[in-house]
């Protein structure tokens, strides 16, 4: 299904509100797909499909580039009971996400060329969406010895990250950024100073004080990010802050962008739509990393998204089984699933008039595509037809038991949202559709 040269019947998506965040196109029209590629776009396709094409009437729904989720944890290889590439890609397709970037926190860690090869083969054979892998930047994610960045990049690693483990040693980070720059590698770093984090389990503040839980200060994030920004100034590396969560970090990113450094930043959907109060009575599904912050910080994240300081929204999809989540808060595992609910949760910001629709969609399409060097994420003739069709207004209630992910630890369980994906196209093929209140997957892989 990801064979781009495969013969398909040409498809025409008509009567659609076509939105392309790259060109800011927002008009009634259609898209014509041929051989898996976008063959034509425009208002002339609003009503009339070319002869011989299979017609998909979008009934006025939005068609935009397929979403790209830059931060997804899976369990393959090693922890397939939590999530496989197959189940993660089904969750993604159901959420309108056509490309997921998988983190190297697996067992074994993706830090070897052979493992990248294995991963790519598994993705090709089992996933119904595009899946790319970020390779580990240090061996075993231990933060000590750099991995074979050049060879891993040649093998197909899309970027380099230390996953949830921050590189605490500044000398190691400096060498990584120096070496990575020679290969024009994108270095993606989650910053959390292990000493400042200590035994913290949630945001340090009033709520943690009331709940009697040890806190993680925002300083744990911003101090290491400040260090990284100085190292980027020194080395000229391409750097992406994986998930920032507080105003201090936002200011650091803003300043670095002002200095024309090759810096970008992401924020997770959790930190845009939830805050520390959502933990309420010790809800472990809201135990994530970085921890949910204060309302002030959440507002800062939206502000950063609107003015372009923050480039990307990620789901930070992190499937965890019930066993590790049904624990006292301090002992429960971190992480929440989110790839399937990314779009409806993000649309909350649009419905609350906190951000305009095109800017919002850009953070999940063309922005990550540009950072990662993907040709998708935009509506452009000749590029792969990865498309998402959705109605931004459909109201529904998220039920974790109906989500596709193998794990059910959703922070949005029982949340009322507006906006539902009705069709997802990957390389011109409709891999998912939601019709008559039932999801259907179309793939010969299942």
């Amino acid at each position: 299904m990801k064979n781009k040269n495969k013969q398909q019947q040409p498809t025409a998506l008509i009567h659609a509100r076509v939105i392309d965040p790259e060109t800011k196109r927002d008009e009634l029209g259609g898209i014509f797909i041929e051989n898996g590629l976008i063959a034509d776009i425009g208002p002339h396709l609003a009503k009339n499909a070319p002869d011989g094409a299979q017609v998909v009437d979008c009934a006025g729904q939005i068609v935009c580039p397929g979403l790209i989720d830059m931060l997804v944890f899976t369990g393959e290889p090693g922890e397939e009971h939590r999530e496989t590439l197959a189940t993660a890609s089904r969750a993604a397709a159901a959420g309108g996400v056509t490309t997921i970037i998988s983190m190297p926190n697996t067992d074994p860690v993706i830090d070897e060329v052979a493992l990248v090869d294995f991963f790519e083969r598994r993705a090709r054979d089992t996933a119904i969406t595009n899946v790319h892998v970020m390779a580990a930047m240090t061996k075993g994610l231990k933060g000590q010895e750099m991995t074979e960045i050049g060879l891993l990049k040649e093998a197909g690693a899309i970027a380099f990250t230390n996953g949830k483990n921050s590189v605490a040693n500044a000398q190691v980070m400096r060498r990584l950024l120096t070496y990575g720059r020679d290969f024009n590698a994108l270095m993606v770093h989650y910053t959390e100073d292990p000493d400042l984090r200590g035994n913290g389990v949630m945001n340090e503040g009033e709520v943690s004080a009331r709940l009697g839980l040890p806190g993680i200060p925002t300083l744990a994030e911003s101090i290491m990010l400040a260090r990284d920004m100085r190292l980027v100034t020194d080395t000229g590396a391409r750097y992406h802050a994986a998930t920032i969560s507080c105003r201090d970090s936002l200011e650091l990113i803003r300043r670095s962008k002002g200095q024309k450094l090759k810096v970008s930043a992401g924020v997770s959907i959790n930190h845009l739509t939830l805050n520390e109060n959502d933990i309420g009575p010790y809800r472990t599904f809201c135990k994530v990393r970085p921890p949910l912050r204060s309302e002030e910080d959440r507002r800062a994240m939206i502000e950063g998204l609107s003015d372009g300081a923050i480039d990307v929204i990620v789901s930070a999809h992190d499937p965890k089984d019930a066993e590790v989540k049904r624990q006292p808060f301090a002992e429960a595992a971190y992480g929440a699933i989110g790839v399937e609910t990314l779009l409806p949760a993000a649309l909350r910001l649009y419905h609350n008039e906190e951000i305009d629709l095109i800017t919002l969609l850009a953070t999940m399409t063309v922005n990550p595509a540009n950072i990662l060097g993907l040709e998708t994420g935009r509506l452009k003739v000749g590029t792969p037809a990865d498309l998402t069709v959705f109605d931004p207004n459909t109201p529904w209630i998220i039920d974790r038991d109906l989500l596709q992910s193998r794990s059910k630890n959703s922070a949005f369980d029982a949340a009322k949202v507006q906006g539902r994906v009705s069709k997802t196209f990957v390389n011109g093929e409709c891999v998912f559709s939601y019709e008559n209140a039932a999801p259907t997957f179309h793939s010969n892989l299942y």
Partner: protein
Amino acid sequence: MKLTLMSTIKTAPKIAFPHRHLLSADDLTREQITYLLDLADNFAKLNRQAAKKQDTLRGRTQINLFFESSTRTQSSFELAGKRLGADVMNMSVNSSSISKGETLIDTAMTLNAMRPDLLVVRHHAAGAVELLSQKVDCSVINAGDGAHQHPTQALLDALTIRRNKGKIERLTVAICGDISHSRVARSNISLLNTMDARVRIVAPSTLLPPNADRLGVEVYNTMQEGLKDADIIMMLRLQNERMSGSFIPSSREYFHFFGLDHEKMKFAKPDALIMHPGPMNRGVEIDATLADDPRSVIREQVEMGVAVRMAILEALSHHLPTSCETTT
């Protein structure tokens, strides 16, 4: 007859080689380098004869003081001294007084009291040889101080280049590998620049010294660009302790991107020379078969090493207090 001999001793060397020590390639002018290379060329001829012995250094004492272990440099200096008739003593200090707590300067003063004429020194600390030269009465030759200088290596490389290419000026020389920790690179950059060669350095940034572009070289991070149209390719040794993730990820990755192989050789000029100061890691910085390629002059470098060291010993010997001077 005696008068003419006196005049050659007193005047000619003053112009040709005025130094008492050889500490750094930075100290040498173009004329001085040319003088040493001419002299070394003659010794290279001599070394190919059956009778190699000269008596220029007869009665002189040469001490090879090596604080760092060495095979080829030490034996090269030993042969050079012996062929010129000197009494040569080798001292490896790893096992000697240093381990008993004696300082570098005390060791030097002790040796100085034995009245050597020439002291050949290798030390692991940059600047140590110069410090030592300030404390002794004899001539000092730097045989390598830390990552700083190894001037006789640069001279023997220059001689090898000149013998194969007929000149040094305007040749493009690509020095590839661990520049940051290499005294060979620093000496060659300096000497080749003095001789008006075009010097490039090629390495991953983690193996380049900071502000490498200020050393008078062009800096490249890929072999493809760095070797383009090069006349000379100088590979440097990569030490084991740099390979496992701290400076570079692995020897496999290093060889793939920075090791010299037949593919990468195609970027250089067809008649490019391959050089290596030794000892080589075949399969790490250089393809196992390429070291034995007809374009490789690695063994000639070793041969020229003896000739160049004879030349520098002779040049320095002109400044030693002579019996003529003591009598006058």
